[in-house]
């Protein structure tokens, strides 16, 4: 048994969903999503028992490319995040009625397939292919099933596509360059390369362009808010919950170990960019009137902090970043789902048009409050563990980074609570707000349970990821 199984399940699932027809599509998709999640848990078990679950096979002889999937703790964590979140995302969409839903759900599974591939691939070209492949389904999901004016949506989505494609092409050029020197693109062969500082800088920058657009870091974030707003909620969840983690994961897996000299030399600049994103995102979020846009900018702030954590090159920074990636994935999916639940009832995303919902649905309001508090890193939630570790990692580099980065918590608390107050509290709204359905409640409860469980007991994840992060750090520090 090896990790290619997950890819097969998701790919077969995508086809089966498409063939199942519009009526059954959502259920078939959920079945395959759960099957993939179940299989990844079984694989995790095998991995913990010390079995080899990697998969490698020669694919193209000339150029020398392998179909190499490597599973270590870090990949396993991301794999679990992807498969579990995919199931949750599919389940969360059950209340909606989509036109041509067989294509819609097939695209979701296909996207999940591509993202899992990105997290597992250990051959540069294979990784690049999966990375690009994930772009096609989200493009169509946002374009066809998105909301708002068609012309504006078109503009936003095409901008997103061309931006990300342009960024990743430079990554491809970097890979091609390294191939000329190494004769292979397998990660372990690339690790053996002895590149000069200048070469490393160029490679680092080429990778940076791809990742900074995907994550996104300022000043490459301009596509984000409008795409998040225009995409259907499922698309936004996929984008913010999993896809932007692809960028962060890639920084740790590819960029830092392949160009460690550049990473060390220019560390302050890149941490600075991350922190600037934190402050900028928070301040812009304060001004937002649209709930989804507010969440988009808060996401920008959070990932800025995560990126800053990865660029510290300390074990704590990296570990915190990975923890926060997982925590943020769950909480952001929950928050976008809340926005969707409100939209289903009030057909609005403008915060000013909400308000006074608490009196009608105290249960829903409490769940929303928990998610809001989790997103501002309240102790005992998973996000606290993540953000605290990142800030600790930052303080080891320079205490000022930690202080500036810490503003994410203060500013975050301010805009999130303000948003909560305006949308939920106040005089009872005259429009009826139907109580959450079973599906909606169950989805939120699962997310909240995950956040609390790992908030109290993060040890399993820490134990899973630490060895592979240490390995990457050894790789980063090999030349000193």
């Amino acid at each position, binding site marked *: 048994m090896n990790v290619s199984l997950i890819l097969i399940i998701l790919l077969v699932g995508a086809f089966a969903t498409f063939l199942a027809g519009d009526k059954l599509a959502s259920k078939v998709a959920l079945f395959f999503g759960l099957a993939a999640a179940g299989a990844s848990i079984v694989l995790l078990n095998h991995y913990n028992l010390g079995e080899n679950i990697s998969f490698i096979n020669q694919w193209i002889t000339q150029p020398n490319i392998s179909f190499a999937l490597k599973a270590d703790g870090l990949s396993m964590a991301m794999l679990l995040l992807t498969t579990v979140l995919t199931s949750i995302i599919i389940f969360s969409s059950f209340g909606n009625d989509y036109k041509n839903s067989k294509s819609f759900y097939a695209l979701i599974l296909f996207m999940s397939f591509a993202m899992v591939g990105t997290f597992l691939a250990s051959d540069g070209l294979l990784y690049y*292919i999966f990375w690009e492949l994930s772009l096609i389904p989200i493009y169509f999901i946002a*374009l066809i099933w998105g909301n708002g004016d068609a012309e504006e949506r078109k503009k936003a989505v095409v901008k997103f596509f*061309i931006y990300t494609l342009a960024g990743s092409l430079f990554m*491809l*050029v970097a890979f*091609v360059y390294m*191939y000329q020197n190494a004769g292979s693109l397998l990660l372990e062969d690339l690790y053996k390369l002895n590149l000069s500082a200048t070469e490393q800088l160029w490679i680092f920058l080429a990778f940076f362009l791809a990742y900074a657009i995907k994550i996104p870091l300022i000043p490459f974030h301009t596509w984000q808010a409008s795409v998040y707003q225009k995409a259907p909620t499922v698309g936004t969840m996929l984008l913010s919950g999993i896809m932007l983690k692809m960028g962060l994961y890639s920084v740790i897996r590819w960029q830092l170990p392949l160009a460690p000299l550049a990473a060390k030399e220019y560390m302050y600049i890149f941490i600075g960019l991350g922190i600037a994103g934190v402050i900028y995102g928070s301040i812009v979020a304060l001004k937002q009137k649209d709930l989804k846009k507010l969440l988009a900018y808060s996401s920008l702030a959070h990932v800025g902090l995560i990126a800053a954590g990865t660029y510290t090159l300390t074990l704590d920074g990296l570990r915190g970043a990975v923890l926060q990636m997982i925590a943020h994935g769950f909480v952001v999916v929950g928050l976008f789902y809340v926005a969707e639940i409100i939209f289903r009832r009030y057909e609005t995303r403008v915060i000013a048009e909400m308000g006074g919902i608490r009196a009608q649905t105290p249960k829903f309001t409490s769940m929303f409050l928990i998610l809001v508090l989790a997103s501002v890193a309240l102790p005992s939630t998973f996000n606290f563990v993540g953000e605290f570790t990142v800030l600790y990692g930052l303080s080891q580099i320079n205490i000022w980074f930690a202080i500036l980065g810490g503003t994410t918590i203060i500013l975050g608390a301010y805009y999130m609570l303000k948003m909560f107050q305006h949308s939920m509290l106040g005089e009872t709204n005259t429009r009826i707000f139907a109580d959450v359905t079973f599906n909606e409640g169950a989805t939120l409860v699962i997310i909240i349970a995950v956040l609390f469980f790992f908030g109290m007991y993060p040890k399993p994840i820490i134990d899973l990821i630490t060895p592979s992060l240490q390995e990457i750090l050894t790789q980063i520090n090999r030349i000193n």
Partner: protein
Amino acid sequence: MNTLIAIIGLGVLCLLFEIFNLRKAIVPITIIGLLGVLGLTISEFNSTESYYNSMIVVSKFSTTFSCLFIVLTIFLVALGHNFYENLQSKISDFIAIKVFLLAGAVAMVSFGNLAMFFLGIEVLSISLYILAASDRMNLKSNEAGMKYFLMGSFASGIILFGICLIYGAMGSFDVSEISALSQSAELPIWFPIGIVLLTIGMLFKVAAVPFHFWAPDVYEGSPALTTALMSTLAKVVAMATLYKLLSVMNADVSESFNVKRMLAFSGVSHAGFMLMTLLTLSTSAGSLLYYASAYSLSGIAAFSVILYVCKNRNNEDITNFHGLGKTNPLLAAILTAALLSMAGIPIFAGFFAKLVLFSQTIQAGYLALVIVAVVNSVISVGYYFKLILAMYTKESNEERKGTPVIIYAVAVIAIVLNIALGLFPSLVLDLLA
């Protein structure tokens, strides 16, 4: 050699069909005949022989490219069944011309003598002139045929002049003799000038910048199926021939003029990308074959959808594609896949084609050129997506009736072949290694 004779025999047979009034059977029989020729060509794959005092030299290069041309012709003939529905009385002519065109194409990649090369290019070009003007009641088609004829014969003249100069310098038309002589140190100036003229003439045929001005008018005016033929088969043939010309006649000569580099810089489209293979003549035959297959297969898939959509219309405006995603999801998906392949998105063959090409070009030391090409690919995504957007975001303005099975079959097979090439690139890349 056998391939060439069999193709010409098939062409004659097509003409005879009209006499016996078997027009209905002509498309299927031609396809079966071409499949037979394809089998014959594949069976000759590993042989290297020369015929008629090396007028024709059959090599790995010529057989693989001939196979590609035959496959493309099969697709184009199959599309003709639908396209010439209302022109039954002329169908045998059109099909026969296509088969003769294929004969010219095969002669062009298997020449061993410049005379044979010129014969091949003329057979191909004259067939194309006729096809361009084949919609004879249409003013635009007539204009296209006339323009193409004038520009094409001008280019042929330049090529002929180049051949003459090479003969003047070397005293032979035989490429192997020319190649041997060109190793010597003292070369008359006529030789490089002749090569440059040959290259320029061929670039006219490929429609590469800066010799591309005839292309937009001719492409637009010609019947859609002819446009499909010109932009897939004819372009690929001309590229392969140019590659062979330069590689058999010792390329170092033209490198000293830096012509190739200038040309590769100026080429902005797929022809330009294919021209980049000329920078690494000794190693890039496989990647040229791969690029040509990937490009022409996606071209065939795209054009079969275009033929379906624009049938019985006077124009090929983008508005015709509005709402195709809803009215005909399968064809819309095929066109999307074909465009994604042309844009170079992974898993489609177009991606590997560009990847292998760029990586070879970097190896040869032209990093700046690759960066220009990468930027250019990004820009090209913009116009490919215009069409995709039109299909999926605009509302359809009218209903389309009928499901032409053959068009579906051609489109599906072409795109499946394209994806198969993307999944297993080694199949083609290693053929000429």
